[in-house]
């Protein structure tokens, strides 16, 4: 896609804001990784390093009352929905001030008031749930949309199939994506599926599919916009395959020796932040000094978060007894 077209289709402020969130995601996750290496994080760390453009792109394309049921490398989506760096770091540190109050860890956070569903470890489990949220919107005649997805690995699960099929039959306003980062933990695509592209799965449901450069935030944003528009018009789900590469190990303890180094070298050149900076330059929206300013801004945002999280109290033991049952039901 050429720069002129992008200039026409994406507002300057949106482009700049996406760049901000790319940098913020990177800075936050890098900081989490550093804390992990220092042994200060409780539990595992799964990052979106090198894949930040996906969540940043799609979450930017949604309206405020649309709903996100994120997958496990969608940090950008939380940030865009207003989860602060402090809250998120508190979550990683098991603090009471995290979105789950210490009940759950890392990316397993959600908040109905901000329209983000809590991630469920069991991969693809949130896809039927997302379809159900879309069903509610359709039944009530609201023009809201749900965005959800899974990894290449998660696309092998039965719930993926049941969700996509149900959404297709009822033409629900939901967009499914796949973050195809070439690996499920250590398992390469060839041991996961016998198709060249995950998007081929969409044919089983009769829904449109599209392959998108997952490292190009503008491409992600525009593809998401198109799919969201289709959904909002009542024309049903779309499946977007975001091609990308997992640049870190599966989680931060994993050196990922099973990934060929050349593959990583190749993809390093396609880093989403580099790409975005190139694009911003071409659009005339910003250059090196601007990028530096953003880098500094997000750095201080992250450091403020670290301070907040570290100063936050841990929960007290008996708090774990609370909340098994609800007294009343909010909704979004």
């Amino acid at each position, binding site marked *: 896609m050429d720069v002129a077209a992008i200039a026409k289709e994406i507002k300057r402020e949106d482009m700049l804001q996406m760049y901000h969130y790319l940098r913020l995601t990177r800075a936050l996750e890098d900081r989490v990784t550093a804390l992990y290496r220092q042994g200060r994080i409780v539990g595992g760390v799964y990052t979106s390093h090198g894949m930040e453009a996906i969540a940043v792109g799609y979450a930017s394309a949604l309206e405020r009352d649309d709903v996100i049921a994120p997958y496990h490398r969608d940090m950008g989506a939380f940030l865009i929905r207003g989860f602060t760096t402090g809250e998120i770091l508190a979550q990683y540190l098991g603090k009471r001030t995290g979105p789950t109050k210490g009940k759950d860890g890392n990316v397993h956070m959600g908040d109905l008031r901000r329209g983000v569903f*809590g991630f469920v470890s069991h991969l693809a489990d949130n896809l*039927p749930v997302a379809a159900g*949220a879309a069903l509610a919107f359709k039944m009530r005649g609201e023009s809201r949309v749900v965005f959800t997805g899974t990894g290449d690995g998660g696309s092998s699960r039965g719930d993926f199939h049941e969700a996509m099929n149900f959404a297709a039959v009822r033409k629900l306003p939901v967009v499914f994506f796949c973050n195809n980062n070439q690996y499920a933990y250590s398992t390469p695509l060839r041991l996961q599926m016998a198709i060249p592209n995950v998007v081929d799965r969409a044919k089983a449901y009769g829904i449109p599919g599209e392959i998108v450069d997952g490292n190009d935030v503008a491409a992600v944003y525009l593809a998401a916009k198109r799919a969201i528009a289709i959904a909002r018009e009542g024309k049903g789900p779309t499946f977007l395959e975001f091609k990308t590469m997992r640049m870190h190990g599966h989680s931060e303890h994993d050196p990922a020796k099973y990934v060929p180094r050349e593959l990583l070298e190749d993809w390093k050149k396609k880093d989403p932040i580099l790409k975005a900076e190139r694009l911003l330059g071409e659009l005339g929206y910003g250059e090196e000094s601007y990028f530096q300013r953003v880098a500094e801004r997000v750095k201080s945002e992250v450091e403020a978060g670290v301070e907040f999280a570290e100063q936050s109290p841990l929960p007290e033991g008996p708090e774990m007894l609370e909340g098994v049952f609800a007294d009343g039901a909010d909704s979004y």
Partner: protein
Amino acid sequence: MVTTAQITEEVSYLEAISQALDEEMARDERVFLMGEDIGTYGGAFKITEGFLQKYGEWRVLDTPLAESGFVGAAIGAAMMGLRPVVEMQFADFISCAFDQITEVAAKNHYRWGAAVPMVIRAPFGGGVHGGPFHSECPEGWFFHSPGLKLVAPSTPYDAKGLLKAAIRDPNPVIYFEHKFLYRRIKSALPKEDFIVPLGKADVKRVGNDISVITYGAMVHLALDAAQALTKEGIDLEVVDLRTLIPLDKETIYSSVRKTSKVILLHEDNKTGGIGAEIAALLAEDCFDCLDGPIVRIAPPDTPVPFSPPLEEFFLPKASDIVSAARKLAAY
């Protein structure tokens, strides 16, 4: 039990369920139904007959054959403010949705604070020659899954009142309706709106000698046994749990404190069944008031067999209760 003046004509257990759904759908437009063949066909057991015409295909949603998918969808819809009531065609197929129920619905509120107000209706139980895949009592699994509420009515009154309460509850509730009772028991119901609150057991027969603690179809077996034992002067108290989670310990304990002897009766397999939990609670909390061993009556640890003599052997019988009661009385 029925304390109101306004009484309808006799209603079957099945009709009571149907009425509860109908009234809740009329009362609250957020309530809708999902499941296989519940629309045009009116459901495998015809509980939702006529609902499609009345409420339209978006409130009576025939789904693809995909239990995990539609239970998951119910969870999402519930979080968005709707009140889904999902039908398993047979309770046995709930295994296909097990992951969504135990990992998503049950843990959602605990993990991140979003309530999941939904009901799963599960037609369960044997005695209908359904064999291993159409007779199961799956409540034991969910009894051991924190975050779910479980209900299992034994009468039309409870069936109606508990379903309404389940629909109004802000949590995921599995409603076990016993297939054997559908058309076999009837009673008159109050005309006005009523609920049976979740978490309250009901003493279906007051007695002094032995407490039989049970639920579902077995309640009627216990009442039969109690009847048979009157001539021997053995006076059974029959406690119908009605709600399995949260368990009404108070009613259980006060019955056992009175009688000092207990029979735990259920149709679900014995090992790891709900009787085990109640025995454990009593053996810890009411140890001093027990005057005899805690007796469990439940099927052996096998699938539900198909052929009538096999299934008959499998299921608890009134005579099992009678002989256990005699032994306990003599203890």
